[in-house]
């Protein structure tokens, strides 16, 4: 069977990112029908998805559905619960904390996604060079941050980011860039601290994703552009970057999924999200309402709100992806 495997690999680049034209063709075809393999018996599909559906229904969905149910209650797990209709949602939409949490979540998301993506693309561009010595060492080291627990790493970073005696403030002070910056009380500084932890953890992974995508770009494109006298920057700008569109979309989506669930880092910094809730994220807001204030119905309403945000983002993403693939074909 490995024969099939090998035969197949010769025809296809290893990475799913293919030059624009091919992928655009393929995706537009796929978007039309989303077909399965016709000659395979579709009934196997039911058998294949049954374990997943059952397990997911019991352990994934049921608890969440139960939460949807309790979002219509003033729900006290230890006492009486009263049906309150949409009161929780009404209160929630008028709760300034919600909008603070939205602001913080998106600010942290932006601060952790975009600089990270730029750095990852830059790093991938450096690592792409086949003449680079020790490249497999560098690639491997990049993934090391992924193995640590968020809690341990938050303790380390909060030491490094200490206002009065943290090393980072020592360095900033020495470089004349700032004096005793408060990476907890400041709104943007606290977001920077959290974004740094996220970036530190995920940049290696994203670099490898971009690297894989760059390695799939046919060399001829570079060679011809180099014959045309393009500078390195121009090559990067006009050859490499356009080929990364799909990857950028992917990294953005995964970053958004993670970004909406940022929880442990801010919680470890200060469980209430800071004195002016400057780093209260949506998920931390939900957690605190449920487990600190014991307002489960209200917390469930926050969960549903988050779902709506997810839906909106998905819709936006759908439109953008479609636009990109349309651009590709036209």
């Amino acid at each position, binding site marked *: 069977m490995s024969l099939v495997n090998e035969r197949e690999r010769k025809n296809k680049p290893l990475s799913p990112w293919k030059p624009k034209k091919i992928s655009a063709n393929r995706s537009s075809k796929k978007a039309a029908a989303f077909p399965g393999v016709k000659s395979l018996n*579709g009934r196997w599909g039911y058998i294949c998805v049954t374990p997943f559906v059952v397990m997911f229904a019991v352990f*994934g969905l049921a608890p969440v559905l139960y939460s949807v149910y309790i979002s219509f209650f003033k729900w006290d797990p230890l006492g009486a619960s009263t049906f309150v209709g949409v009161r929780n949602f009404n209160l929630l939409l008028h709760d300034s904390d919600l909008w603070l949490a939205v602001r913080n979540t998106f600010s942290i998301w932006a601060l952790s996604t975009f600089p990270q993506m730029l750095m990852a693309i830059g790093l991938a561009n450096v690592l792409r060079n086949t003449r680079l010595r020790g490249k497999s060492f560098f690639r491997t080291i990049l993934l090391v*941050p992924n193995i640590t627990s968020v809690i341990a790493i938050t303790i380390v970073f909060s030491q490094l980011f200490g206002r009065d005696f943290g090393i980072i403030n020592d360095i900033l002070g020495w470089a004349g860039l700032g004096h005793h910056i408060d990476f907890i009380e400041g709104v943007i500084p606290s977001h920077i601290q959290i974004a740094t932890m996220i970036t530190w953890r995920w940049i290696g992974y994203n670099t490898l994703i971009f690297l894989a995508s760059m390695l799939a770009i046919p060399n001829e494109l570079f060679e011809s552009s180099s014959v045309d006298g393009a500078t390195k920057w121009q090559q990067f700008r006009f050859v490499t970057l356009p080929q990364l569109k799909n990857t950028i979309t992917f990294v953005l989506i995964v970053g958004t999924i993670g970004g909406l669930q940022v929880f442990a880092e801010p919680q470890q910094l200060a469980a209430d999200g800071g004195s002016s809730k400057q780093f209260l994220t949506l998920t931390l807001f939900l957690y605190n309402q449920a487990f600190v204030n014991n307002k489960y119905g209200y917390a469930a309403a926050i969960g549903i709100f988050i779902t709506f945000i997810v839906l909106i983002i998905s819709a936006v993403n759908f439109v953008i992806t479609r636009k990109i693939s349309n651009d590709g074909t036209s």
Partner: protein
Amino acid sequence: MATITKQKTPRWRKVPKRNYILLSMIVILSIFPFYWMFVVASNTNAEISKSPPSLIPGGRFFIVAHKVLSAQGVYFNSALLNTFIVGISIAVAQVIFSAIAGFAFAKLDFKGRKGLILFVVGTMMLPSQLGIIPLFMLVKNLHMIDTLYGLIVPALITAFGVFWMRQIIDAQIPNELLEAASIDGASVPRIFFRIVLPIVRQSGFVLGLFAFLAAWNDYLWPTIVLQSPKHFTLQVALTQLKPMYGLDYGLQMGGAFLATAPLLILFIFVGRKLVTGVMDGAVKG
């Protein structure tokens, strides 16, 4: 990748010195927090609480390690074993179940497929914290409180794993290949085990390893489910090191370092494979 590295290196691919400097800095930044853990764990609290703090390891690591290992309620060996059992069970189950379901979603034509996958994607982004109390009641009714099953069973399948494998199978395995095989008379299970699984092996490994890491570092759920010290996983065991209020940084970092060391060792062996897997299985957006 073989096809790429075999190529003659074109002239435009010279490596400037500054790139090596940049990469070395990245290496240092990647490793520094681990190094810092060790520095904190091997110095006295007073040493760490100086300004500027000591940046070189002290001689106390074994004292601290001993304190960690003999602390009340910390059965490090059994915690290590428990964590391995939980991590590997979850990783293996997730890979297998996700591959099977992902295969069906990607390649098999059955009614309701499209709706189901959209639903899966939709629920993927919901914060799991939302369902903790109902989930706990469920797990309690299944008599899995204070057992490793209580950690393993709810995590056997994740929507993310299924979605991921679906994308991988969709991207890496062309329909024509499977069509050819089925015309040759191969049954669906045979096609899955003989063609699909070998091709997505690398990506499955990545999914498994990330599931393993997540299980290794999970804290919130284990601390609710596990009750007796003999059943603790590493992260729950580390909580036993905390003093009444605040933190004993030396002790805590010593524990964190000891809990991370097995992963670092594991990483030495599988790191390169992981790199290949991540690059190989990178999913299209």
